[in-house]
């Protein structure tokens, strides 16, 4: 139900007018394929972050440093 892919943020931009949060976008690199992705739900995302993207919206910043714990 949720084909989401990870990509790296290359650059960030906002629309000239209107609510910046609503229109904040990033150029994201998915292993060579580049697409514009909305950052409206990830105000904390920065250039260089790996983000999880579904239907053009970034949903989560991927953390490389998490250590797996077993139940």
């Amino acid at each position, binding site marked *: *139900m*949720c*084909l989401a*892919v990870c990509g790296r943020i290359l650059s960030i931009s906002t629309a000239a007018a209107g609510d910046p949060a609503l229109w904040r976008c990033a150029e994201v*690199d*998915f*292993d*060579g*394929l*580049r*697409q514009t992705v909305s950052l409206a739900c990830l105000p904390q995302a920065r250039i260089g972050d790996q983000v999880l993207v*579904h*239907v053009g919206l970034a949903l989560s910043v991927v953390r490389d440093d998490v250590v797996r714990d077993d139940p």
Partner: protein
Amino acid sequence: MAEHILLGHGGGGSLMQELIATELAPLYCDPVQLGLDAAILALPHGRLAFSSDASVVQPLEFAGGDIGKLAVIGTANDLAMVGARPLHLSVSLILEEGLPLALLRRLVRSMAAAAIDTGVTIVAGDTKVVERGKADGVFISTSGIGLLDSPNPITPQAISPGDQLLLSGDLGRHGLAILAARHGLDLQPSVASDCAPLWPQVQALLAAGAEPHGLRDLTRGGLGSVLVELAEASGCDLVLDEPALPLAPGVAASCELLGLEPLHLANEGRFVAVVPCDRRAAAEAVLAPGGGRWVGAVQAAASPQPQVRLRTALGSERLLPPFSGDMLPRIC
């Protein structure tokens, strides 16, 4: 002369004659052919192969090729797939009223160059013009004749359990280039179509004694569709070693992002060869310089319906997903 195709250019009158003489003449190496209703050919002795094709690709021009190049090389490759050296082609053009002449000139140049690359001569053709809105710019129909070089028949019925599957190069470039052009995908680095003549590799395979039992070029529907056809025609299961499949750069990522199956992406310069087990090494030596490699084997069918199975990197197996013909991207 007008800068766009007019209905009159297909009318059989002076406009059409002018179009042929000025714009289409470069297609034909022998200008005498332009004045005849049919080409007169002196053919070498031997069995002939004959094939026909139509090109309706959109967009008309894309990275690595265009509809003209596809048309010429496509038919030549069909002939190569039965082991025939391509000799002569006919080219029928259906032009849409309003097509820019500059575009037509580029396509003609491209077809002429493709003919030289492929070693064929274009000996016959036809030109029609349809009203604006009825032809998507250009449709091209090609037919071709080739001379059989292979002593043994290259038909799916020759395929048997124990035969080996080899690819002539990496997968997905053409399909990805078309997707990128149609949907404005930004690929870094950009991907160009792999449209190319296949006869040189086929000729080398035959000369090396590979004795192929099957040759199929991959075109629409990709490797997946070809293998399904071969399985059904031969009555055998085809088992692919998935980690061995060479995907062109960008294909894996783009297919994942768009939710497409890489094995269904079109190719225009690749083929699969089915060779006897003891000819595998010879075939690999011929195909390796072009990026080709071994990818699987033929087995006796494990069930009444022959299947195409993929052995994953994890040691498990799956069937090839069904492909109806429509590449629909998924979000789920």
